[in-house]
C-alpha cells in the first residue's frame, strides 16, 4: 500500500520536473530582474549604495522629460516605417518571384534574397555607416556623379536627415526591418502553398493579375501579414543597435529612441532607478500597443 502511494506521488510530480531547467533560467534571469525593475523604479538608485525611496517621482519626471517624450515620438516614426515596409517590399518581391516560372531561377533568387539574413547586423550597420559617410561616402559620390551634388550632405551628421538615413539602411528593404528577407521567405512560402485550383478557378473567371492578387493572394496571406506586422511593431519599438552605433541618439536628440535613452540613463548617468521606471513605462506602452494591434487584426478577420 505504501509503495503504491509513493509511486503515484512521483507520477504527479514528474511533469513538473521537466520544467525545472526552463523555469530555473526564467526565474533567475527574467522574473526576478523584472520584479527588481518594478521595485527599483520607485527608488532613486545609482546601482550601488544610494538607494532612496521616492515613490512615483521617477514616473512623474518621465512624463515631463522632454528627451524621453521626444524619443517616444521618434520611435513611433520608426514603427510606422517598419510596418509600411513589411507589408510592401517583401510582399512585392515574393509576388515578383512567384511569377517566375523556372523553379531553378526561383531557388537561386530566393537564396540571394535570404543571404543578408546571415550577415551579422553589426556588419550591415557598419557597412552603411561607410556608405552614408560625409564627403567621400559612396552615396554622396553617386549623387555627385549623376549631377545631384546639391543633395550631398553628411547624412548621419545632420539632424534633419539622420533618422531617415538610419531607417534607409538596407535600401530597398529599409530599416533592417525586413533585411534578410524573413518576411519575403514567409510570404513566398505561403504563396507557394496556395492550392493551384484556386488560381485556375480565378483564371476561368477572367481575373487579371491585380484581381487575383486582391481576391486570392491577399486573403491567403492574411495570417502571415498580420504576424509580420505584429513582429514589426514589437521590434521597431526596441530599436537600439543601429541608433547607438551610428549616432548615439544624436545629432542632438534627433535620433534618440527609448532603448538608447534607457541605456544612457542607466549606464552613463547611473540613474538606475529612473532607468527602471522608464523601462516599466515602455513595457506598459508596448503591452497596450500589442493588445490594440491584436484587437485591430482580429476585427479584420471578420471583415472578409
Amino acid at each position: 500500500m505504501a509503495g503504491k502511494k509513493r509511486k503515484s506521488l512521483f507520477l504527479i510530480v514528474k511533469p513538473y520536473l521537466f520544467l525545472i531547467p526552463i523555469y530555473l533560467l526564467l526565474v533567475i534571469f527574467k522574473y526576478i530582474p523584472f520584479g527588481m525593475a518594478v521595485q527599483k523604479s520607485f527608488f532613486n538608485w545609482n546601482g550601488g549604495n544610494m538607494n532612496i525611496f521616492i515613490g512615483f517621482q521617477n514616473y512623474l519626471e518621465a512624463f515631463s522629460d522632454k528627451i524621453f517624450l521626444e524619443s517616444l515620438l521618434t520611435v513611433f516614426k520608426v514603427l510606422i516605417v517598419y510596418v509600411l515596409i513589411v507589408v510592401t517590399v517583401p510582399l512585392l518581391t515574393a509576388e515578383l518571384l512567384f511569377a517566375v516560372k523556372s523553379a531553378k531561377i526561383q531557388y537561386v533568387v530566393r537564396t540571394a534574397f535570404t543571404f543578408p539574413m546571415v550577415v551579422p547586423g553589426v556588419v550591415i550597420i557598419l557597412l552603411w555607416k561607410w556608405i552614408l559617410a560625409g564627403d567621400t561616402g559612396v552615396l554622396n559620390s553617386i549623387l555627385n556623379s549623376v549631377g545631384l551634388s546639391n543633395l550631398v550632405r553628411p547624412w548621419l551628421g545632420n539632424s534633419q536627415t539622420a533618422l531617415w538615413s538610419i531607417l534607409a539602411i538596407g535600401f530597398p528593404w529599409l530599416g533592417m526591418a525586413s533585411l534578410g528577407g524573413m518576411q519575403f521567405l514567409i510570404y513566398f512560402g505561403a504563396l507557394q502553398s496556395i492550392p493551384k485550383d484556386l488560381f485556375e478557378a480565378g483564371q476561368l473567371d477572367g481575373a487579371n493579375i491585380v484581381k487575383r492578387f486582391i481576391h486570392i493572394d491577399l486573403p491567403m496571406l492574411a495570417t502571415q501579414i498580420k504576424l509580420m506586422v505584429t513582429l514589426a511593431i514589437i521590434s521597431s519599438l526596441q530599436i537600439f543597435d543601429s541608433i547607438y552605433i551610428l549616432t548615439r541618439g544624436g545629432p542632438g536628440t534627433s535620433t534618440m529612441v527609448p532603448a538608447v535613452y534607457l541605456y544612457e540613463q542607466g549606464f552613463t548617468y547611473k540613474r538606475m532607478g529612473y532607468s527602471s521606471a522608464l523601462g516599466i513605462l515602455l513595457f506598459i506602452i508596448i503591452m497596450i500597443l500589442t493588445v490594440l494591434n491584436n484587437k485591430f487584426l482580429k476585427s479584420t478577420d471578420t471583415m472578409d
Partner: protein
Amino acid sequence: MGIFAKITGRVLLALLLVLTLAPFLLLVLNSFKTHNEIVMNPWMPGTELRIVNYVKAFSQVARPMLNSLNVTVCVVLVTVAASVLASYSFVRYEFALSGFLYYGIIAMLMIPGFVMLIPQFIQIKNIGLYNTMWGLILPPAAYSVAMGTFLTRGSMESLSKSLFEAADMEGAPDITILTRIVLPLSKPIISTVTIMTGLNAWNNYLWPLVSSTGAKTQQIAVALTKMVVSVVDGNGVLFAGYIIASLPLVIMFCLASKSFVAGLTQGSVKG
C-alpha cells in the same frame, strides 16, 4: 499575363536583386584594397589583392570570434535542452497548472529585452557572473527559450499519440521515449530553433556590451565596432574583419539553407 507585365516584373526583380547585393559586393571588393584605392573608386577592384588586410583584421577578430562561438554553442544547447524538456512535458502529460506554466514561459515573448537590461545587469553582478562566459550565456538563453518552447511544443503536438501509447505499453521510461522517439522526429523544428537561437546569440550586441569587458570575454558584435585601423590601412582592414566575422554564418547558411528556409516557412504554412 501580358509580355509587358512580364518584362516589367523581371526588370523590377533584377533591380531589387542588384540593390540588395550591391552593398555586399562593395564590402568584398574593398576589403582587398588600400585606403586610397577605396576612396578613388569603391566600385572597381584594386590593382592587386591586399591579403595583408585580412591578416591584420584576423588578429583583431579571431579571439572575439572564438568567444562568440563558445557562447553561441552553449546558448543553443541550453535553449534546446530546456525547450525540449518543457515541451515534452506539456505535450505528454496533463497536469494542474500546465496552462499557467506554459503562459509563464510564452509571456517572455512579449517583454521587450531592454526593459530588463538594468536589473538583469545588476542581477548578473550580484550572482558574480559579470564578465564571465555564463553571464553571457544564461540571460540570452533565458530569452530564447520562450520562442524555443513555442516552436517545439507546436511541432511535438503533431506527433501521433499512438507512438506514446505503444511506448507506454512497453513500459519505456521517459528518457527512452525522449531520445528514441521524440528527438529524432523533432529534428526539423530543433534545427529551426538552433538556427534562430544561434543567429541571435552570435549577433548579440547590447547584452555583451553591458555585461562584459576585456579580451577574454569580448563578443564579436562588440569587437567589430571597436576595430582599430591606421589611416594608411584604411577601411579595407575593417571590411576584411567584417567579412571574416560573417564567414561562419555564411558557411553554415550555404550548408543548411534548405532546412533553414524549410524551418522558417514550416510554421507559417500551418498559418
